[in-house]
Structures are given as structure tokens and as C-alpha cells.
């Protein structure tokens, strides 16, 4: 099926036809051809739209712009302005009666304006529990096309598209497929979907599976056909109950439609998918640990090589890709590598889904073309930082990634730029930090996560992260020395270089990037015994401002150490000898009279 950039739906219900809508259609076709847009814009006639009063009418998709009471002489202007220059003609648009200003279009809203959806193309549009709705939006057309192609051609198409692994490492997907295809096997091959998303603050894969499970399934079937696998696995964590439920329903529906099972669409190709539930161990997102878990063994990584493409599940060649990677495949096959490779940058093609969280106004899930800057994501899409606080850093790639400071806000988002900055693309978590965040504390937080999730198989990760965490705790408690800082940095490099799997190899990244960009904060903790963001409570000195204190007595009542004295109408006072720096007085004071020095 040919696809167009825009569709002009000309109403050809009886009422509109009597309002000369066929003339409108002819005029549209004439003008579109005149501007050379006939391959980009399709003119379609539809049945009655039901709003005959303002006919003849034309609805333009995908924007959903509703033109009404069109005359033939309007058409050249509409085609030139809207289709050629991309400026919808406001005066011909429908605005509901009795309203002063028409409500904005989705594309006028900053959050949606710069987003481009491929992996999330069906989000919010279809009922994920109904396969027919997926099919109605060109679902499984990619599969139908793929089954008529030779496996080699499909792999070439994916290679040409430039698609790279969306799990974060960015390996060329087509190349991985080719390696798995070429690998010798004495009993089958497997395709695997890694849906064991575990980064704190990341929910891209969860949302894709919840909103559009068939896109992942279709991608897997295409991949399996290209690679020569007859069995697929989706490894998904059991903590995603809704995603799991929708996936189970989707698989069942696909089987009922003959899209899974024997002889798919009469092609002679057999394939089915099993769901494997993960118990939520972070290390199981690492592919060798994940495959051990699929086999029912303890989720621990093993050294690579041999790589899974040769030696995967049950020692058979296995192609593992992330949810988002699989979800991109159907569109690439359906619309071609050339279309896909036009989007993005030289080395990073297509779009990337990010979950935007932390100190940001528009928390949510965004899909943007590669190469967009961090500033555009945070300010134009994310709506900036709440309460007019200053932006401090953005943490990309979760506990495996790093913190990128304000001076690099204009960094384009692609695999290479983020790596150069010491962070990584990662699976797509983006945590925004404001001026109230202590960077040492953030490093401590992420390290405590990875330390906790370390499986313990290799020494650098098991012992190294523990020692690093110990040093970070010392620093945040004001007990750190300059020597500790050196040890921390040295340890970080060693854990990074010598750990067995990706978990240990990337765990030091939050420490290394904060040391690189925010060393002054570490030094303030060590040399001046001060936390610039007032987060590390052990370093804070609490004091009551006598001018602001209303002597309400609340802090005195709440203080667990009875360190606060003061009577009625008398400004209160904190006894620094007794104070344990718990910060309760600061939290309860309604008059901002408790200050931190």
C-alpha cells in the first residue's frame, strides 16, 4: 500500500456533492499536481461526515484539520499554504459556534508539536486489546509485505534504514539480524524481545506494550522470518501487569487471525511467541542474564563472546532486541529504508522514545527525531522546570548513564554525542534535576540502586560498587577526605573497565559524570563540609531567623531531640549541641523562619 504524507478527505455525501464537492476534489487534484505534490498528498472521497451544514468540507489527516464551506477559488490558496508551506488556512477552518478563539490544535501545543511518532504511532488512537483497530491503522501490512520478500532483502532493508538498538547500546539492528541468520545451528534459532525495563524513572517499553502490543509482535514475526527462527520469546517483568495482560490478549488474537502459528498468511512460515515473566531483577535486562533466566536458570550474566547471535537461549543462535527496536520494524518494512533513513542524524537514524521525569512541568512520554537538542526536549516539549527554578542537569540512561550539565543543553541527542558527554542514550529515561538537587547525593542514589541490583557474580561489581557507595556516603555525611575522592575516581574507572557485564561496566557512570561536571560540589562537601543544595542534612546547620519566627511553637513540639527552646511570643532557638540535623523543623515551619546555613 502506498503511503502519503497527508490525506485530503473530501466529503462526498449527498449534501456535500450537491454543494459541488466533486468540483472541489477536481480542483484539489489539479492544484496538487501543479505543485508537484501528487506523490505526497492523497485526495480521497469519503461518505457523509455528518456535518452537512458547513459543507462542502474537507478533512486533512493526520493533522485533523477541518476545512468547511470551501469554494473552488479557495483551493489554490489552500494547496499552496497548507500543503506546500505547511501553514493551515485558519479562516477556512471550522470553529465551533459561539466561541471567541478556536481551541489550539494538537500541534500548537508545545508538548506535542516537536514530537514525531513511529514507535508510538498508535498511541492513544487504538484500543490495544483489539487487533482490528491495529490492522485498520496499517497494522500487519509490513508483515504481509515482508513475507513476499526474501529474508536477505528484509535484512538489507533494516540495515539500510540505519536502525540501531533502542535498548541503549546502539548496535546496528540489521547487522545483528544478519549475524544471527548466518550463524550455524543444529536445531533452530530464536528471536527475543527484551521487555525487562528496569531503570528508575523509565517507562518507554511499558508504555509501548500497553498502548500498542501488536507493533512489537509484528516486528518479532518479521524479524523471525528474516532470521529463520520459528520460536520467539518476550521477556517481560511481572511488575507490569497491564502490559502483560494486553500482550497475552494480543498474542491470542494474532493466533486466531493466523498471524502466529503454522503457515503464517499462507507463506509456509511457522512461528509462535512465548511470554516469559521476569521477577524484576535489574541484571536480567542484561542479555546473557536474561537468556539464563528464560532457560529457568539463575539470572546471572556470562562473559561474551560467544555472543548470543551464535550462542544464545539453549545455546542456539538468538537475536535479542529491545521493545522499541521491534516496534520500529513494521513501519520500516512498510514504508521502506529510504523513508526511515531520512529521519535523524548521520549516524543515528529515526526517532527515540524518552520518558521525561523529575523536575519538569510536562512529565510524560515523548518520541522525538534523533538530533533534537536536550534544550528542545526539556524546554519546548517538557515545558521547563517547575516553580521557575534553575535547571542543573539532566540524567540520561538511568543508573547506567550520566548527568549532563546546563552548558551542554544544546547537545544533539544521538548515540555518539551522549557517549562523548560521558553519558549514554540508554533505553530512554530522562530525569531532569533542578538547583535543589545535590549532585553527590544523586550519584549516591543511583549507585545505591546498582549496588543493590548487582548479582554478585564478578568481584569488581560486587565489591567495587559497595566500596564506592561507602565512600559516597562518607562524603555526603561530611566525613569525606580528599584522598577518598581520589580513591572513588580510581575505583570508578576500575569497576568500569573490569566488570563482567553491562551492569558493572556502566554503574560508575553517574559518579564519573558528576565528578567531571560537578567536582566543585564534591569539594564543597569535603573541604568546606557544606552541601551547596542543602540536601545532605548532616552538613546543614539549622537556625531560626528571629525576625521571621512567630513563636507558634510547632518546631518545638515536633523536634524529636527537644533541641528547640522558646516560649510564647519569644523567637525560638535551636541548641546546636542537641540538634541531630533531622530537618523536621525546616519541613514543618509555615513561616520559612528555619534557615539552613
Amino acid at each position, binding site marked *: 500500500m502506498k503511503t502519503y504524507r497527508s490525506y485530503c478527505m473530501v466529503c462526498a455525501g449527498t449534501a456535500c456533492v450537491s454543494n459541488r464537492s466533486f468540483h472541489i476534489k477536481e480542483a484539489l487534484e489539479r492544484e496538487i499536481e501543479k505543485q508537484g505534490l501528487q506523490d505526497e498528498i492523497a485526495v480521497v472521497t469519503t461518505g457523509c461526515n455528518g456535518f452537512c451544514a458547513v459543507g462542502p468540507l474537507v478533512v486533512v489527516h493526520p493533522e485533523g484539520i477541518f476545512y468547511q464551506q470551501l469554494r473552488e477559488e479557495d483551493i489554490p490558496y489552500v494547496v499552496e499554504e497548507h500543503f506546500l508551506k505547511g501553514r493551515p488556512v485558519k479562516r477556512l477552518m471550522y470553529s465551533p459556534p459561539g466561541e471567541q478563539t478556536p481551541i489550539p490544535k494538537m500541534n500548537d501545543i508545545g508538548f*506535542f508539536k516537536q514530537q514525531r511518532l513511529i514507535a508510538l504511532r498508535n498511541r492513544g488512537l487504538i484500543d490495544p486489546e483489539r487487533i482490528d483497530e491495529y490492522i485498520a491503522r496499517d497494522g500487519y501490512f509490513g508483515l504481509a509485505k515482508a513475507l513476499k520478500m526474501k529474508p536477505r532483502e528484509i535484512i538489507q532493508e533494516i540495515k539500510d534504514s540505519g536502525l540501531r538498538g533502542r535498548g541503549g547500546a546502539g548496535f546496528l539492528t540489521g547487522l545483528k539480524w544478519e549475524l544471527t541468520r548466518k550463524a550455524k545451528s543444529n536445531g533452530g534459532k530464536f528471536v527475543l524481545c527484551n521487555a525487562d525495563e528496569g531503570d528508575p524513572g523509565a517507562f518507554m517499553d511499558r508504555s509501548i506494550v500497553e498502548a500498542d502490543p501488536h507493533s512489537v509482535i509484528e516486528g518479532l514475526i518479521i524479524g523471525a522470518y528474516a532470521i529463520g527462527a520459528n520460536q520467539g520469546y518476550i521477556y517481560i517483568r511481572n511488575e507490569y501487569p497491564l502490559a502483560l495482560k494486553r500482550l497475552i490478549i494480543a498474542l491470542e488474537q494474532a493466533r486466531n487471525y493466523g498471524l502466529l502459528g503454522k503457515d503464517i498468511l499462507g507463506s509456509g512460515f511457522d512461528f509462535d511467541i512465548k511470554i516469559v515473566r521476569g521477577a524484576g531483577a535489574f541484571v536480567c535486562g542484561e542479555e546473557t542474564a536474561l537468556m539464563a533466566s528464560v532457560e529457568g536458570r539463575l539470572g546471572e550474566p556470562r562473559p561474551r563472546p560467544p555472543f548470543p547471535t551464535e550462542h544464545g537461549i539453549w545455546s542456539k543462535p538468538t537475536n535479542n532486541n529491545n521493545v522499541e527496536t521491534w516496534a520500529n520494524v513494521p513501519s520500516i518494512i512498510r514504508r521502506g529504508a529510504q523513508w526511515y533513513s531520512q529521519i535523524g542524524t548521520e549516524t543515528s537514524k529515526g526517532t527515540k522514545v524518552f520518558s521525561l521525569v523529575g523536575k519538569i512541568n510536562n512529565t510524560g512520554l515523548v518520541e522525538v527525531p534523533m538530533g533534537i537538542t536536550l534544550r528542545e526536549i526539556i524546554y519546548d516539549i517538557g515545558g521547563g522546570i517547575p516553580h521557575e527554578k534553575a535547571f542543573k542537569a539532566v540524567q540520561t540512561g538511568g543508573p547506567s548513564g550520566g548527568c549532563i550539565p546546563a552548558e551542554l543543553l544544546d547537545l544533539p541527542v544521538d548515540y555518539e554525542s551522549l557517549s562523548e558527554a560521558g553519558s549514554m542514550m540508554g533505553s530512554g529515561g530522562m530525569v531532569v534535576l533542578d538547583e535543589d538537587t545535590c549532585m553527590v547525593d544523586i550519584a549516591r542514589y543511583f549507585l545505591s540502586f546498582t549496588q543493590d541490583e548487582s548479582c554478585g557474580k564478578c568481584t569488581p561489581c560486587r565489591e567495587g560498587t559497595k566500596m564506592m557507595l561507602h565512600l559516597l556516603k562518607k562524603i555526603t555525611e561530611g566525613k569525606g577526605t580528599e584522598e577518598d575522592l581520589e580513591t572513588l575516581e580510581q575505583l570508578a574507572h576500575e569497576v568500569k573497565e573490569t566488570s563482567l557485564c553491562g551492569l558493572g561496566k556502566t554503574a560508575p557512570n553517574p559518579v564519573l559524570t558528576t565528578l567531571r561536571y560537578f567536582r566543585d560540589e564534591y569539594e564543597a562537601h569535603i573541604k568546606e563540609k557544606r552541601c551547596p543544595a542543602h540536601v545532605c542534612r548532616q552538613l546543614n546547620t539549622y537556625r531560626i531567623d528571629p525576625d521571621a519566627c512567630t513563636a507558634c511553637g510547632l518546631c518545638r513540639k515536633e523536634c524529636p531531640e527537644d533541641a528547640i527552646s522558646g516560649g510564647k511570643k519569644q523567637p525560638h532557638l535551636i541548641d546546636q549541641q542537641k540538634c541531630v540535623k533531622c530537618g523536621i523543623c525546616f519541613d514543618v515551619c509555615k513561616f520559612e523562619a528555619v534557615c539552613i546555613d
Partner: protein
Amino acid sequence: MLREGAGKAKITVHMGTCGIAAGARDIMVAFLDEIEKKDAKDVIITTSGCAGLCSREPMATVELAGQAPVKYVDLTPEKARTIFTDHVLKGKIVMEYALALGSERTF
């Protein structure tokens, strides 16, 4: 796009995890209750996944036949009832609760 039935209007309640956590089920219940009470047989009600803007959940999209869809944000069951009466039944968009008109751009 209304693809099924002889529906005059379609209401989509966004029920990803974020929506459900923010109370989308109550919104769904309110719409279903209104449909029953007003005996509105030609209104299709359906669910969909996260619409992306998780901080403004619960969200719902109302689409009258032949018109651009309207996205509503920060819903409560009361707001849902108002939207049902004014927009779904009478065709008047509830500007106060509406975020935007139309759909997102896909490649």
C-alpha cells in the same frame, strides 16, 4: 476516525498505567453511567493507551463524527459528566477542560 457501528460520537478514555493510577477507571465509570442514564445508544466508548502527557492524566478524547478529535485533560468524574452532556450530546466543546483539537503527527 469512527470505524465501526453507526456511532455519532466516540469517547476514548486513555488507560495506560499512568491514566489508571490517576483515576481513569472513575472517568470510564462516569461516562458509562451517563450513557446509560441518557440512553445514548449511538455513543461508542473505548479505551486506549497512554497519550504521552502523563502529568495531565486522566485524559479522554472525544470525537464527534466528521469532526477533529478533542483531548480533555486533568479529568474528574464531574468534569466527565459535563463533557458528556455539553460536548457529546450537544456538540459544544467544553473549552475549560480541553487541551487541544486534532491528532498527533506521525511520520
